[in-house]
């Protein structure tokens, strides 16, 4: 028998995971635009800090990750860590969908199989709340 879904927890976890994925993507997009770091010199460190504070994607990414962590703390006031931590694996589904439909990458059948297994698992974990 499936218990009644707890929508507050499911919605909170979904929002938490999406913030994490958005933060990771924005950060990697913003940081890849920076010419690579060449060494630990004062001028390089200044260039690095200037890049971080003037690139909207980096600022957006850091903001998303800060909200992601705040959301985790809020969730853990009522939700089990044995529910929240495994549910983080939902990010594999979100990242794979984005890679396929947004970046147009080829996704192998084997990877899809793994992603559907993970998603089914997260569904069961969320319903166990």
């Amino acid at each position, binding site marked *: 028998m499936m218990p009644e879904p707890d929508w507050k927890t499911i919605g909170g976890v979904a929002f938490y995971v999406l913030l994490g994925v958005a933060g990771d993507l924005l950060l990697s997009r913003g940081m890849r635009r920076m010419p690579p770091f060449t060494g630990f010199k004062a001028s390089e460190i200044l260039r690095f800090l200037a890049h971080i504070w003037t690139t909207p994607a980096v600022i957006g990414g850091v903001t998303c990750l800060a909200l992601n962590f705040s959301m985790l703390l809020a969730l853990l006031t009522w939700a089990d860590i*044995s529910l929240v931590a495994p549910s*983080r694996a939902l990010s594999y589904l979100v990242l794979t969908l984005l890679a396929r439909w947004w970046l147009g990458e080829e996704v192998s059948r084997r*990877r899809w199989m793994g992603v559907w297994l993970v998603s089914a698992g997260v569904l069961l974990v969320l319903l166990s709340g």
Partner: protein
Amino acid sequence: MPHPSPRLNGKIIAAVLLYVALGIAGDLTLRYAMRQVPPPTSISIAEIGRLGAYVASSTQVKIGIALLALNFTALLALLSFLDVSIVGPARAISYLFLTLLAWLILGERVTPLRWAGVALITAGVAVILSTAHGSQAPTPHDAGA
């Protein structure tokens, strides 16, 4: 870029286990710390302020954050000389360990449904990581551990 990983030896295995243990310890500590405060009753400035004040004053939360920061540092250090094929399976298995410890230490009620879900997730992550060589969609850095 992929680079040949050094052969597995005791030191490398210990480093990977330390990385996984730091992540699990961080998660368990944060749950232990946060369940002592009443959950928010609404999304309001007052409630966010109440939780924020608790987070800022709690030593346990700070320990949890420090453990997760060390976990992330360990991941970066490991990935500088190991590839995902070694770090990855450790992450997959960490879901099972975390659930087991949440049950044993924190006394969380892990129902058969939740165990089944965690087992499927572990299997699925293992399948995904077995495809990690070559150009594939990225894997999240915060997936478990």
